[in-house]
């Protein structure tokens, strides 16, 4: 086993990891930084974000409005001190990206342009065509090349967070990883560790995520004793392609696209998002610009009513852009045009595009505070793998790209400060334990009998069935027991491939182990929350928000047997007391919104 000593080890080379690395380099130029990633940074899934990134700019908007949109969008489960910090720093981060060369879409006068986005009361979404994440990732990655102290370890697969308790307090001491290229374990001894490994969408069968979004960082922190928070809140994006789950940006609706059922009817008006806005004149927080949870829930209701389209890949609704015209569609939504052509043979200028909700984002993750620190001293997290408290029960589109900048920077600066105060020291105990752990992982190769692809498919099916847009106690209990049974089978997972070089059979098996652990935490957290809030909607008598019992964050902590134990902690409320969450016309008349609080649940469901 090779050993590398660094001040700050960052696991994950996407937007949050790159932002953290640059923050360390700028704030603490003398510190050494290891940027460890299982893919080359420009392959990270930040690349797939399309619509844009929020930041208050221009007349008519205010930090207070962004704060209120985010808190209401999160159904009052957001920590409001975090939301306040976030809205105060989002815009400066968008300008920081500008100075790093991102090609923000501009107005004719050269100022940045912003677009409308779901659940946002004002146009405040900065965008670079419909490839915002791509441009953001490449701008940050290429900027990171300026800093010689950021040493990249590309295609190094992180296995575990290494801890020790010298001096009586357990703390992070580094990261054990494995070089995918050479097949060799490497221990990164580090003063501080930052996890920025992204989301967990591949736990589900129908998802918009890339192959790499496999919950690794969440799983590593969870196994190191750190709680995962609010894991039941899994976002379904309303507009993905049926079958593949490939994402069609919310920007398509921000620019004026509409959703129609099989009768060509704009059904969102039936679900507390109306009245219908005129074609080509989208209005913030109305109709297609409702928040993602509500729009996905409306799809579910249309499905129950038999008003969806039939496609070769099952039911769908229609995303209609035709009224926007060819020139506008090509300028603002070029990727949508490419995707529709490639995957469906359709032209959005002439054709209605079939779409359906698919799992997109994990609101929950590694529990961290406003300083990005976890409960394990020396371990930090940022981006989708973390639960910063920003998104509450439902994330608003374009808050996540801004989050990875704002809180990625915080994570880097705080981890740097920690590493300065308590620098890395070599530890015989840490090294010998890490070597044992490495041996255990390597021994997986050429062993086992359980087919990993079968386990993965069954996990996907269990989560799709039991933890979907609407949930019941029975369905979630079934999911918990199916996942637990799969974990038992996983103990004997088969890795046929014995080649040390790029053994993706092995890496996929390790990813599967993380996904199962995190899926279990999701299902147990969901089952315990006996209310409906944001992306967690129940049909079994808990169909209303219950602030008496559940105005609280869920914590899932791993016990000695590897099972999640659920507990709660308070939500930080500063200025916004929980209120009725309303959109459409009801959202315009505070105090008169009760009738449109939630869509009506059909009795037969």
């Amino acid at each position, binding site marked *: 086993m090779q050993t590398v000593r660094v001040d700050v080890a960052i696991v994950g080379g996407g937007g949050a990891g790159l932002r953290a690395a640059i923050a360390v380099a700028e704030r603490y130029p003398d510190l050494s930084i290891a940027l460890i990633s299982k893919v080359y940074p420009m392959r990270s899934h930040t690349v797939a974000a399309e619509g844009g990134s929020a930041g208050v700019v221009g007349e008519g908007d205010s930090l207070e409005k962004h704060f209120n949109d985010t808190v209401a969008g999160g159904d009052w489960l957001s920590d409001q001190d975090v939301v306040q910090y976030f809205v105060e720093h989002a815009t400066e981060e968008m300008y920081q990206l500008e100075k790093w060369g991102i090609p923000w879409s501009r107005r004719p*006068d*050269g100022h940045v342009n912003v677009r409308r986005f779901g659940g946002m009361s004002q146009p405040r979404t900065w965008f670079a065509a419909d490839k915002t994440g791509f441009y953001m990732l*490449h701008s940050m990655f290429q900027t990171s090349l300026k800093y010689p102290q950021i040493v990249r370890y590309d295609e190094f697969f992180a296995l575990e967070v290494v801890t020790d308790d010298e001096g009586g307090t357990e703390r992070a001491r580094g990261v054990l990883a494995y070089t995918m290229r050479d097949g060799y374990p490497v221990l990164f001894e580090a003063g501080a560790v930052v996890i920025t490994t992204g989301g967990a969408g591949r736990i589900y069968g129908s998802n918009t995520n890339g192959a790499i979004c496999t919950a690794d960082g969440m799983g590593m922190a969870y196994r190191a004793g750190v709680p995962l928070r609010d894991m039941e809140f899994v976002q379904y994006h309303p507009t993905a392609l049926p079958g593949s789950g490939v994402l069609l940006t919310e920007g398509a609706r921000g620019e004026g696209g509409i959703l129609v059922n099989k009768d060509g009817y704009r059904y969102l008006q039936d679900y507390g998002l109306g009245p219908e806005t005129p074609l080509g004149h989208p209005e913030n927080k109305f109709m297609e610009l409702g928040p993602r949870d509500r729009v996905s829930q409306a799809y579910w209701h249309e499905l129950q009513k038999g008003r969806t389209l039939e496609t070769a890949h099952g039911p769908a609704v229609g995303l209609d852009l035709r009224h926007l015209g060819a020139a506008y569609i090509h300028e603002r939504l070029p990727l949508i045009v490419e995707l529709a052509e490639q995957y469906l043979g359709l032209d959005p200028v002439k054709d209605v595009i079939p779409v359906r909700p698919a799992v997109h984002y994990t609101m929950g993750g590694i529990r961290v505070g406003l300083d990005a620190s976890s409960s394990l001293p020396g371990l930090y997290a940022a981006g989708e793998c973390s639960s910063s408290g920003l998104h509450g029960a439902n994330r608003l589109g374009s808050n996540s790209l801004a989050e990875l900048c704002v809180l990625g920077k915080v994570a880097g600066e705080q981890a740097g400060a920690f590493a300065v105060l308590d620098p890395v020291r070599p530890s015989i105990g840490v090294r010998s334990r890490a070597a044992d752990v490495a041996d255990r992982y390597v021994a997986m190769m050429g062993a086992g009998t359980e087919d990993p*692809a079968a386990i993965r498919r069954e996990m996907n099916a269990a989560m799709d069935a039991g933890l979907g847009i609407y949930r019941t106690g029975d369905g979630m209990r079934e999911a918990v027991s199916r996942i637990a049974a799969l974990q038992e089978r996983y103990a004997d997972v088969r890795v046929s491939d014995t*080649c040390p070089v790029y053994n993706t059979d092995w890496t996929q098996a390790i990813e599967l182990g993380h996904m199962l652990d995190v899926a279990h935490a999701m299902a147990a957290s969901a089952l315990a929350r006996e209310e409906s809030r944001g992306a967690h909607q129940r049909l079994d008598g808990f169909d209303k928000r219950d602030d008496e019992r559940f105005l609280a964050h869920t914590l899932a902590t791993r016990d000695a047997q590897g099972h999640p134990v659920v507990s709660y902690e308070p939500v930080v409320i500063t200025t916004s007391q929980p209120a009725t969450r309303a959109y459409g016309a009801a959202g315009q008349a505070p105090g008169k919104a009760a009738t449109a609080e939630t869509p009506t649940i059909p009795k037969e469901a």
Partner: protein
Amino acid sequence: MAHSEAGGVMTVEVQRYRPDVDDTPRLVSYEVPWTQDTSVLDALNYIKDELDSSITFRWSCRMAICGSCGFMLNGEPKLGCEQFLRTYAPGPLRIEPLANHAVERDLVVDLEPFMTKLAAVEPYLHPDPTGTPEPGNLQTPEQMTRYGQFAACINCMLCYAACPQVGLATDFLGPAAITAAVRYNKDSRDFGNAQRLPLLDQEDGLWPCTFVGACSTACPKGVDPAAAIQQAKFAATMDWATEFVMPHHGAPGAKDGGHA
């Protein structure tokens, strides 16, 4: 017009190479069921899940933006996620690693030479030494069009696989790295032209390019690296001429209106 329904079983030949066992790569045939929207990437994942879990390839986003899954498909460099078996019906389809790259294993090639070349051209904004306006630069849509196309490169390496010179001149920076340099050189916010030009204007920098244009044909994102290289050669030539008549470049001029 939606794709018509089609499908069947196709023979897919994949180049396999396991470095600790094999002396040379070999083609292995697999029978893959397909329908009208089965991508080449789907076919590889079918093989991995159902037929041979040791088959090795890179992939992630499935939507032609992460740049991971470039392969040679029947001899042409393509992204596996946006190519469909229907195009190759009735088969067989041959999948090989990207040409002009060292093969690590199966379809995985060595990207390190490219990463070194990319970093070498300083692909980041060199701000105005006299200061950047707050809160940020202005840039008109017209100024953006001068570099916008070149900023769309996803580093998928298809252009390196297509380029006849990449295989001959190993130190040639290659289409994507030169394009990255030109992307910044053409950006009204950037003042790094003078630093980048000597990096490009070396024997193995941009000059091995013979304007075959294969890079632009192969590019899945319409970047047109050949145009970028042509512009870089022109700039380097002009720089040489300027140096000849006016040593040390004279005064550095503001470009494209600077912050205007």
